[in-house]
């Protein structure tokens, strides 16, 4: 572990998360006929969802992002950082029509936010899908006003798949994104919104999106205009990071993570984890060191139950642990 010191600091105390995912049949892609079926669905998604994919512009902050309309009355999902510092935004449709939008709430830890179109109307909207069950290999379609609204083109369509789950409510795909796409929609093959574009890393496979299920969990607060959380490029420092509540020992030569302390009132304490237990697996995946434990927990969310594999006195034990948010366990400074 090159960064063992840092990881230890993070791990001592905060620990972390997991889930059981329903398996769903994924569209095959092994023959030309499969590909044609896939293509037809992507074409359909592009056509159907285009009118609901809007650009959001703020005079005050000079920011230009995207959003997606999810109700006939004009409720818009977007990214928290797109509406940061704005109370009104200009909502621009792909055909250039523009209307005023009122900024509602935002949770910066999840990078999710809401806007409502002020004028009543019958807006074309996209349905909301589900994101918690998405996993590596699921096909997705991205739209967004890349590099800002451009009158001479419609928001570009991109196709790809989920590459990695997490951290927390986020997911990573290979649908390439760029500035201006932020807040724009990621769709499943039925054209339902499954996530909102948030950030990118250098790799073309590192495009990050906030899952739509994260909106559901915070729905009322967002509608009510609450603004909370903090934007964080480090998943382990995110207040929404799920923890189990142990201090990790750093003994080399052990396959697993030795429990140095158990935080009072933590998920680990409730599940019966004890000092000097060695955590060897999460949901059946072997854990070799503290870094791997953090990595796997970061892919889960608070509220989920994980199966922790533990060695105690050379006897393997399984225990169920219900994960909590870091900020439920540790008050923020």
């Amino acid at each position, binding site marked *: 572990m090159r960064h063992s010191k840092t990881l230890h600091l993070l791990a001592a105390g905060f620990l972390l998360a997991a889930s059981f995912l329903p398996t769903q049949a994924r569209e095959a892609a092994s023959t030309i006929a499969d*590909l044609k079926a896939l293509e037809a669905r992507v*074409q359909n998604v592009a056509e159907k969802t285009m009118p609901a994919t809007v650009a959001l512009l703020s005079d005050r902050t000079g920011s230009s992002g995207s959003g997606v309309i999810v109700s006939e009355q004009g409720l818009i999902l977007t990214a928290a950082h797109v509406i940061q510092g704005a109370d009104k935004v200009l909502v621009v449709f792909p055909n250039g029509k523009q209307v005023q939008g009122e900024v509602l709430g935002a949770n910066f830890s999840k990078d999710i936010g809401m806007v409502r179109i002020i004028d009543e109307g019958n807006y074309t909207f996209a349905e909301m899908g589900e994101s918690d069950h998405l996993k590596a290999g699921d096909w997705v379609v991205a739209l967004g006003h890349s590099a800002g609204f451009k009158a001479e083109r419609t928001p570009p*369509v991109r196709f790809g798949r989920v590459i990695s789950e997490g951290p927390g409510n986020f997911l990573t795909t290979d649908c390439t994104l760029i500035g201006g796409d932020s807040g724009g929609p990621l769709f499943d093959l039925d054209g339902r919104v499954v996530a909102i574009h948030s950030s990118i890393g250098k*790799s073309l496979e590192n495009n990050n999106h906030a899952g739509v299920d994260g909106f559901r969990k915070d729905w009322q607060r967002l509608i009510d205009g609450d603004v909370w959380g903090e934007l964080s490029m480090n*998943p382990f420092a995110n207040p929404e990071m799920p923890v189990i509540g142990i201090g990790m020992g750093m003994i080399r030569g052990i396959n697993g993570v030795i429990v140095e302390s158990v935080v009072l009132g933590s998920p680990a304490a409730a599940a019966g984890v004890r000092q000097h237990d060695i955590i060897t697996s999460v949901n059946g995946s072997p854990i070799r060191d503290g870094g791997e434990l953090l990595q796997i927990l970061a892919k889960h969310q608070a509220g989920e139950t994980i199966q922790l594999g533990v060695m105690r006195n050379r006897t393997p034990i399984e225990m169920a642990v219900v994960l909590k948010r870091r900020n439920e366990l540790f008050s923020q400074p």
Partner: protein
Amino acid sequence: MKILTTSIVAVALLATAAFAQDDIPLLRPEERQAVDNQADQFNGALENSLSEAAKSTVRIWSGNRRLAYGTVVGDGSQIITKWSELVGAPRRIRVEAFDGQVRDVDPSGVFQDEDIVVLDLIGPPLTPVKWSDKSPKLGSFVTAPQPSGQPASFGVVSVLERSLRDSDHAFIGIVGAVGFDGSGVKIHEVTPKSGAAAAGLKPGDIILKVNNRPISGLLELKNSLVDVKPGDTVNLIVKSSNGESSVPVTLGNRPELPNYLGDRLRTMEGMGTDQSRVRDSFTNVIQSDMRPNPDQIGGPVVNLDGEVIGITMARATRTRSFIMPSAAVQNMLNSEPMDPALAAIPTEPSDQRIRIRPAVSPPRQFRPGSQQRLRRHLSEMQQLMDFMTQEMEALENGRW
């Protein structure tokens, strides 16, 4: 100050994690395996659509350096490829066909606007491409084959055919007033000698409709003119101090404006991407999310039926590649090319940075000495610095 401290810690962690192994901090080996297997399967299926077009796809070499792909056209005795990738090639240009035969060529003409050069094959013809005039729909699957018949790059149609040149778009010649809350566009300034000036529009006038379409603001005004050609006349409903009136305006060409991207956007455009030298000033393009390398530009692009719908024209940015549609290629080939000796050296007007692309050398010449290691190390440090700067900026601005 608190925010800045936090962000430095966060940036350092993210960046080191990214460069220690993969760029995706939470990618699990089983996820990597799942998406890699899926990609293999997908590419295997795609190959069925590539066999015909691959026979008309060639690789262009200069000595040991791969420059581009090319497309065999006409009766099979000519090849078209990307002009800017061949300019200044250090050694004689040769082409390699799908069956491995290597042939000499002579550049015979240049289409400067499209950044295309025509190469005459010396010796017997190769298999010419069969153009399809089908226009792909939004979201259609498009693939560029390698000469070997495997996919070089795959993507979907992101944006339907359009011109990237400002001067191909109609220009009305007004500047809208910022902060005007009513419906329509309030004129702040009229550009001298423009259509708006000739029609007598004045600052303070409000444009309410374009050809009976009500206009909600400046962006909708721009949008309403997208399908109008320079030289066409549109009918405006304008509210001025004298009340509402109908004003015909004949539109001109939009002036070419220098394209100043913000530094952050420019950085993002190049992230994880080796961009073509000439990439953003074409007249007929389909935009796709394909990811060809610059040395894979110039070959045919097919749909799932294997029909050639165009050629790859440029790798523009992280999110964009351009395809020249078959009909546009054929129109171009019916016009008269320029003598290569007279053609200007192609450059991208908006590109203000000098980029050095490392040449691909054959394995036998590749002996990593200390010099090479140092160079690689420096370039990695530069990448790391760029990456950290980007992350810092993203955090400071809180948006992108």
